[in-house]
């Protein structure tokens, strides 16, 4: 089992979700987050006060998959979330020790 954490541009969420659904992936968790990497923030000016806004709004998408499904899912995310411009985001893949479905007590691959 692996967990995919993808930070993507907010407007790409629908495309990414549709691509993952086509692969048969049945669930995911999405959070509105703020952050920055190499993409610069912007400046906001309110009369005499100038503020540099470094943290830009992004979407963090989390999905846990069986090992065999990971490669295809990562490829789908990278393909659909790409604009080619700075700020497209990153995908992280992490190992997961176990998973339990609360309703049925199923564990491991059966639970994801």
């Amino acid at each position, binding site marked *: 089992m692996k967990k995919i954490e993808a930070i993507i541009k907010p407007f790409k969420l629908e495309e990414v979700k549709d691509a993952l659904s086509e692969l048969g992936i049945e669930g995911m968790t999405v959070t509105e987050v703020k952050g920055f990497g190499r993409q610069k923030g912007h400046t906001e000016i*309110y*009369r005499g006060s100038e*503020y540099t*806004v470094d943290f830009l709004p992004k979407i963090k998408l989390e999905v846990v998959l069986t090992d065999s499904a990971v490669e295809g899912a990562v490829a789908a995310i990278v393909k659909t979330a790409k604009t080619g411009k700075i700020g497209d985001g990153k995908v992280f893949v992490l190992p997961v020790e176990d998973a339990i479905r609360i309703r049925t007590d199923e564990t491991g691959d059966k639970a994801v």
Partner: protein
Amino acid sequence: MIKKTTSVIRLLAAVASLAMLGAVTSTLHADTNAPAAAPAAAAPAAAPTPLATPNPTNSAFASASLTNQVAFLEAAHSNSNPDPSGIAYESDPGHNAWMMVSSAFVLMMTLPGLALFYGGLVRSKNILSIIAMCFGITTLVSVLWWAFGYSLVFGQSFSTTNPTLGLILGGTENFFFKGVNSLPNTSYAYWVSQNVYSIFQLTFAIITPALIFGATAERMRFGAIMAFVFAWMFIVYFPLAHMVWGATGLMNGVWNAAAKIPAIDFAGGTVVHMSSGWTALILCLILGKRIGHGKEQMMPHSLVLTFIGTALLWVGWYGFNAGSAVAADVVAANAFTTTTLATAVGAFTWPLVEWIFKGKPSVLGFCSGAVAGLVVITPACGFVNSTGAVIIGVVAGTIPYIFSTIVKNIFKYDDALDTFGVHGVGGTCGALLTGILVDPTVNSNLQAVSAGSPHNPAMDNGLITAIANHSLVVAQAKAAGITIALAVVGTLVIGYLVKFTIGLRPSVEGEHQGLDIIDHGEEGYTH
């Protein structure tokens, strides 16, 4: 020939209004009069009887000759003195209607106009502190006004008991609204009920202190605000309003023949905007900066609220400026026009300057430019023509902009919502520009022979001469100097008094938490 035709038409119009007035009167007093009056109201055009049933509150009208009756109505029509008709005065429904609407409009400038304009500019944890400030001041000042304020500003008894004091404060005769009834106080308006006039002036006394606390936003406790306002009304506002607008005032060039400084201020450039703006500067210096000022981001939490507030201020300001004619007359019409032009030009210029120097025209720039335009035209609106208004709009969009952005950052004072930059600086510009751009043809009070009275008091105090010599700006500068001195000294005294008694600021922790919770136990938004 043309003139003669015009007078015939006016005579006919006056006779027609006379017939209508009779009809309305008999309708209004149907309860107290004999029931036979009702049919007359049903068919006003056909029945000559209304002429025989005058308003019971003015019995002199019935016994007057038709010529004098027409003269009386013509005086109401043109907002002039009815004395030559020999008929005792009464209020006029048309002028009263406009003044009641104007009063409601000016109240709307504070609740909710200013509350939303300022409220949108603070962080969300302090939105309710702005609303409570506006609401609290409205209630406190209303009570002070009823008890003492109206009399101290518009009374005249001190001028007989102590002439020097009479130049600074009004009198005691109207304490607790004594004698303030539906008949006009002809020292201020021939045709507007005194109770309506006093409420109209109350709404000015409400918004003026409320403006101050934009500069002190997000760090002054509610109790300290109320204590400051209580003292400030007596020490700064009541004397200043009397000096500028009171019939016996020191700087009332239009109405007081004995005015020492023949200055003019139509709707409150000195009384409202300079007094609040200069007070705001001193108070924000006494108070100190917000914690984290210059380091933390303190962005407005909702420019949408600020926009709505600005729009309400603009609309309400028609009551403020055009209403300051205290009549629905030609001067009000001029003020209505100049107010619109100056505001539009101000709201055009400010974002244009931003676009040129900062790269983008901002919504806050539109809002700021509109308010600045309204501020700068305020003292001038009934005294300048449309060209003057456009010039004023350009000044409004540039000078306050420079103070709110560049000067503030150089001197690093925390005028949080730019009360000084917009109202203090804008009001001062307006007071001076009024002296430069004044056009006596738009307002007969500035002419040697005033339409309102047989002898214009402005002939005696030097105002007419000053306008003719183009030296009015000197009197305006003196009035501005007195206003600044009074606001600065008064604020130093009251500000330190409150600081060393009940204190001005919340604890550091409380300021971080936000004034809404620590002062009011509420939150503006729950997510």
